[in-house]
């Protein structure tokens, strides 16, 4: 009951004209960003953070705007998957498998609306999951001391490489680079400058917003330049939608699938390092095994569209649980959302729920509102979004680059930060070339300082005994999970990735 009262209070916070307006703008922008190949949820949110920041929005409105973008992108990714067989963002990859065949059969409209409904169901249940699970996690987190926090941060890094990276050494490399960059600046505990090489601009440390926008958004521009991929993928293809209301029988047939995959996707999202891509993948695989008796999956089965979409939207909601309750994000986009909170001087984690209940519950209420808006936007207005697919990257990418510059320049007004951002863009491009994941870099820059200060506090309290780091059952438990999380992908990750790839290959060629 307590929870419901707090949720009701959250709705009071969220239901102002400004917040509703921001949620609507966020939903629209998010859907567009999700739909356009080359602009995923993490770079979408990344280029908007500095803007939210310079516009002087408060913490709650900023979070409402940006999480609406996040949810919206999860909806939008499916549009180009279904119509063009090109995933708009990574989690929408699995939606191609049945979505595109449906479109070829002239059922694009039905595929879009079924996937829209599935997205809604997934996100709706995941938001409830967030409400129920996050406060429980907070109770556990309140038992954490500095040593446990240090172990938790280590866990986040060790599991984040997870299934997404091909090589754990490269994930560790990325994390070390991020942590190393976080050390730049004046040490908060003793006041000595570190790694600044006498450059005054570096005394404040490296602004993580500059790093994020450079690594995500600018490096994307370089990738497009590398391939001179300037023409729109939709050009020359006929994009016909047909009827946009699915027959009730089709919806009914998909309901059990949607419910099952919502649960599964949510769990995948809560686990650190898994994220929405895994959520949609295991959802699709499980449903194929469970209900595909006639062998229609992969040939345009509506359930094959509903499963990954419910799964990835539920995972997106699930990924918010560790981010809000522990302050440790489990995926790339939630890492970027963590940056938003940090830049607004709000420390996520257990204390967030007691100190800033307005932010938490306002945000949760806004997620419900955004979800209804997205359903309304995505079914009748889907035709408008499909037009946007015709925008070629040769127009889109310059916009992305210029908006990135506007945002960063707006924060500091210094050319130095812009140069640093370009540097990060180049580094991001090189790291991508070497298949080094970028998310651990971001996470390192964000969490480096809290991680270090927890380490120092823990050892300080125990009078210099480093054994304190494994001094409690809770800490030992976290270390064990961390080590398992680091080792498991070495053995299982390859198999899973091969399967993901194999499934994509034999379901018809998908242009990357």
């Amino acid at each position, binding site marked *: 009951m307590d929870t419901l009262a707090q949720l009701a209070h959250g709705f009071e916070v969220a239901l102002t004209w400004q917040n509703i307006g921001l949620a609507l703008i966020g939903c629209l922008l998010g859907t567009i960003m999700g739909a356009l190949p080359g602009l995923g949820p993490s770079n979408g949110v990344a280029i908007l953070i500095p*803007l939210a920041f*310079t516009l002087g929005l408060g913490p709650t409105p900023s979070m409402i705007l940006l999480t609406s973008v996040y949810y919206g992108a999860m909806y939008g990714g499916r549009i180009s998957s279904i119509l063009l067989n090109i995933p708009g963002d990574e989690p929408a990859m699995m939606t191609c498998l049945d979505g595109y065949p449906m479109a070829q059969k002239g059922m694009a409209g039905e595929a879009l609306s079924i996937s829209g409904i599935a997205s809604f169901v997934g996100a709706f249940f995941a938001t409830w999951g967030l409400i129920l699970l996050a406060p429980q996690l907070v109770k556990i987190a309140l038992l954490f001391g500095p040593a446990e926090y240090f172990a938790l941060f280590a866990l986040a890094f060790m599991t984040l490489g997870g299934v997404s990276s*091909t*090589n754990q*050494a*490269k994930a*560790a*490399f990325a994390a*070390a*680079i991020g*942590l*190393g960059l976080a*050390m730049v600046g004046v*040490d908060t*505990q*003793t*006041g*000595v*400058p*570190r*790694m600044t090489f006498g450059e005054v601009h570096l005394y404040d440390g490296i602004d993580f917003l500059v790093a994020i926008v450079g690594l995500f958004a*600018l490096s994307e*521009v*370089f990738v*497009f*330049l*590398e*391939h*001179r*991929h*300037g*023409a729109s993928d939709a050009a020359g293809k006929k994009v016909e939608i047909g009827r946009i209301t699915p027959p009730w029988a089709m919806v009914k047939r998909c309901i059990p699938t949607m419910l099952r995959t919502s649960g599964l996707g949510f769990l995948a999202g809560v686990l650190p390092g898994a994220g929405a891509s895994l959520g949609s993948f295991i959802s699709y695989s499980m449903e194929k095994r469970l209900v595909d008796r006639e062998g229609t999956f992969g040939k345009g089965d509506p359930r094959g569209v509903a499963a990954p979409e419910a799964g990835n939207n539920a995972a997106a909601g699930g990924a918010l649980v560790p981010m809000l309750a522990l302050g440790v994000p489990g995926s790339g986009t939630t890492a970027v959302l963590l940056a938003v909170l940090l830049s607004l001087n709000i420390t996520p984690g257990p204390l967030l729920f007691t100190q800033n209940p307005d932010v938490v519950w306002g945000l949760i209420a806004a997620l419900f509102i955004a979800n209804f808006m997205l359903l309304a936007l995505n079914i009748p207005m889907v035709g408008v979004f499909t037009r946007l697919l015709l925008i070629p*990257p*040769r*127009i889109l*990418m*310059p*916009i992305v*680059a*210029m*908006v990135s*510059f*506007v945002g960063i*320049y*707006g924060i500091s*007004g210094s*050319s130095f930060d*812009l*140069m640093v951002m*370009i540097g990060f*863009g180049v580094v991001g491009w090189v790291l991508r*070339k*070497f*298949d080094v994941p970028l998310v651990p870099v971001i996470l390192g820059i964000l969490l480096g300082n809290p991680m270090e200060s927890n*380490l*120092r506090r823990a*050892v*300080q309290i125990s*009078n*210099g005994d480093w054994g304190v780091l494994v001094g409690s059952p809770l800490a030992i438990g976290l270390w064990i999970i961390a080590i398992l999380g680091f080792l498991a992908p070495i053995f299982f990750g390859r198999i899973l990735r091969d399967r993901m790839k194999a499934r994509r290959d034999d379901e018809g060629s998908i242009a990357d």
Partner: protein
Amino acid sequence: MSDRIFGAVGLALAIFYAFAASQIQESFLTDTVGPKAFPYIIAAILGLASAYIALRPDPEPVWPPLGRLVEIVAAVVALMIYAQVLPEIGFVIATAFAAAYLSWRLGSKPLSSVIAGVSISVGIYIVFHLILGLSLARGPFGF
């Protein structure tokens, strides 16, 4: 081969980082761990990961042909010039040039890239400055 070079560079970076950490001046008022310990740990992880990458390289990444690399370098230079001249000549002019350049290099025809550049610049100016009130770089003409 690329991964071996990458690993070697990473290793050099780790050694450099450890050296830079050893140069941190400790103040007389310090905690038990001090400001150097964590950077040393990071340098160790960086070194180990780089060594592993160098010894067990992944398959070669697909490198773009030289022309494309030059393209990226040129874009980086263009953006750096943009960053430098932005406060001097103002947002609208600088951005129009930069956006037109990027659009041209991504395959627009010269005329349409000019149109794209100008419309992107003016569009951003209208949305972000006139509507949202964000302060953009002011040049000699005030925009």
